[in-house]
């Protein structure tokens, strides 16, 4: 039935999927199965597709993605914890024809950097904010994040997050969508092929919108942290679907340009 | 020649702007000048004072112990600064509402009832110009023409129609000031 062998198929002419050229070959430092790798890849896909590698400046956070600058071959700045939107504001103001994005985790964007995030969005800075929400502080070893779910365990909420003590999980995109400066807010995930494709489209839209000077675009990616959650990557994905999505439902929250 | 002046009163009397006009006038006359306000919330309603130095040489300290001339526009200012006038120096005071008059005998003292005059002439906004006129009468450190140029320099153009009114006030102040004998 199959009269072709593998060497016949594995041929540049038959290529249907390969890593984009913006993402370089350096092995990423993330744990096996970490969502960061997929989102990095998607960013590279979009930068390559829009042909903006020479016009894009990324701002890396403090958190697991602190080394994001090592993997995508574009100019990058690495910000102090939470301050990425302030850096991005200034970069975009001084280089208005460039594509400027921040890449931030939940601790960076929703805890220490809440003020910078909110005010950049309120001013409607024409930047893209990529927000990785996995409900935990991964880099420092699994402490409670502002987005940790009620009852969810972390090293600083070993018996689970309690409303009475820790407050409720914080839904930043919902808050930010209220601001007139914000043109696009969407919540995505990368746990399935379908989700990855949707997320790629969302990131592309955010980059395209940022060039229209209509305000800030925010793409939240609800993610797993299988190490911090102490689960296998597959189980973490299923746990995310069952537990995270009810608090952080996927889909567009705001789109003033297509609306 | 160096002239070290303190102007003191309460907020709203135009103390700071009078100092500014003096400084601008000095600039027009080619002098070295410095102007330091007591700044901050006290500008709004509390006491307010400004130090102006006009000099032919480089000005060392803009912060002073004593003054060649003190201009006081209320009782607390008179109480605070009368003693800080250098012997042989000049004190100019507005007599409005004072319960204690100046008492030093080793300085030249002048009274100018600018507050009373400006109220009776319905021109409270030019009260500080009356005082400035008085100062220039007894201490002609700056030529009146240069004061008018300084004023012009300082005021934004949209306020230039007020210049004649200010000039009149300066001239009125020159007539209003009187020697005060202890």
């Amino acid at each position, binding site marked *: 039935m199959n009269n072709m062998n593998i060497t016949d198929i594995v041929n540049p002419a038959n290529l249907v999927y390969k890593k984009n050229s913006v993402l370089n070959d350096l092995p990423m430092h993330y744990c096996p199965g970490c969502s960061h790798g997929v989102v990095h890849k998607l960013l590279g896909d979009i930068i390559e597709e829009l042909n903006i590698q020479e016009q894009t*400046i990324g701002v890396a956070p403090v958190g697991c993605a*602190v080394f994001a600058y090592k993997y995508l071959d574009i*100019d990058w700045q690495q910000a102090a914890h939470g301050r990425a939107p302030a850096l991005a504001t*200034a970069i975009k103001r001084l280089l208005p024809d460039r594509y400027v994005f921040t890449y931030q985790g939940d601790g960076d964007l929703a805890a220490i950097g809440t003020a910078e995030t909110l005010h950049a969005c309120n001013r409607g800075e024409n930047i893209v904010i990529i927000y990785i929400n996995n409900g935990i502080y991964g880099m420092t070893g699994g402490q409670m994040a502002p987005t940790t779910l009620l009852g969810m365990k972390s090293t600083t909420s070993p018996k689970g997050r309690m409303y009475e003590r820790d407050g409720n999980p914080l839904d930043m995109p919902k808050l930010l969508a209220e601001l007139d400066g914000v043109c696009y807010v969407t919540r995505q995930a990368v746990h399935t092929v379908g989700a990855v494709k949707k997320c790629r489209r969302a990131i592309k839209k955010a980059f395209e919108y940022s060039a229209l000077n209509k305000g800030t675009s925010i793409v939240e990616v609800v993610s797993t942290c299988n190490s911090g959650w102490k689960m296998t990557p597959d189980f973490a994905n299923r746990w995310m679907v069952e537990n995270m999505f009810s608090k952080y439902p996927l889909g567009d929250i705001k789109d003033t340009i297509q609306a | 020649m160096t002239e070290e002046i303190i102007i003191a009163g309460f907020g709203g009397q135009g103390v700071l702007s009078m100092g500014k006009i003096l400084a601008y006038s000095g600039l027009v006359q080619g002098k070295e000048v410095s102007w330091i306000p007591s700044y901050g919330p006290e500008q709004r309603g509390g006491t307010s004072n400004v130090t102006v130095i006009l000099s032919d040489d480089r000005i060392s300290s803009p912060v002073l112990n004593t003054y060649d001339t003190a201009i006081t526009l209320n009782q607390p200012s008179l109480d605070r600064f009368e003693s800080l006038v250098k012997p042989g120096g000049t004190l100019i005071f507005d007599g409005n509402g004072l319960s204690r008059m100046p008492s030093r005998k080793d300085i030249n003292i002048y009274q100018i009832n600018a507050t009373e005059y400006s109220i009776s002439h319905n021109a409270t906004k030019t009260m500080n110009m009356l005082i400035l006129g008085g100062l220039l009468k007894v201490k002609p450190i700056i030529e009146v023409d240069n004061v008018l140029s300084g004023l012009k320099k300082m005021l934004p153009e949209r306020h230039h129609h007020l210049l004649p009114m200010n000039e009149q006030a300066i001239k009125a102040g020159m007539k209003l000031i009187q020697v005060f004998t202890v």
Partner: protein
Amino acid sequence: MRKGSEEIMLMKGNEAIAHAAIRCGCDGYFGYPITPQSEVMETLMELEPWNTTGMVVLQAESEVASINMVYGAAGCGKKVMTSSSSPGVSLMQEGISYMAGAELPGVIVNVMRGGPGLGTIQPSQADYFQAVKGGGHGDYKMPTLAPASVQEMADLTVLAFDLAFKYLTPTMLLADGIIGQMMEKVVLPPYQPRLTEDEIRAKYPWATLGKPHGKKPNHITSLELLSEDMENLNKRLQARYRTLEKEEVRFEEIACEDADYVFVAFGISARVCQKAVEIARSEGIKAGLLRPITLYPFPVEKIKELSNRVKGFTVIELSAGQMVEDVRLAVNGKVPVEFYGRMGGVVPSPNEAFNALKEKLIQ
């Protein structure tokens, strides 16, 4: 020194900074209001430089955001600055340390007020330690310039940018409330055009302006995982600081040639001491004044040299005594070093300074 044809203006020290920044080709200002320096941003907003030179002026949500905006813009090779006063500058320390670590140029103006805490809005010099000893974390030094007149507020703003770019370091203009609030004559620096993007790429190849085709991307970061790499960055910084210490010391001497006693003071204190020198000389005491213009690098050699021929030093500061420690280190016990200071926003009078000299050193 200056051409006679240049226009002489009268303005506040804070206003002079704003004018000088625009004229020296500054690309951006990011700040947050605080007394006694709010006139810097207010003047910029009045002057609307975005319509003339193209300079960006933005009121940030906090001092934390301001300094990080400076970081971001500096990372693009742009000439940018912020200004604040003591409590606000405390908030900026993290960002300043990051700039030092990432080797980014930028100018930070601190128009000091009395502290600690929220303190007063009156003048102070109590942030000397914070500025010259490193207020943020890690081994870094920051060129620190101390203007003593409105003219120097303008001139040293220009110099601060020059040093920042020459040594790739955050640079501080350390003024006090009086120098910020007082009006004096000033001749503003000549206009210099802002650098074009091509010029920035040529002069500062590290700038993140977008990766040029066929070239490696630029990364602005202060993070190194390997301690050896981090030590190498530190060695590079330290070597740069040694060069600064050798080449950039600036000071002014007044009546020091025949002086028996020398005041050491900066900023407004130096102006007060200049008058105290006049008072002393009128009483037959041969006093002089050494005014450090650069607080870092500190004029160590000059003080050493003076200590070989004077009978003593009096240091006057608007603090409990901070710079005096550096004077004592330089004098190294050769002659007495006395200190007189006022705190919390109080400014000593020339008489107080003179009495400090007379009572502590002479009698």
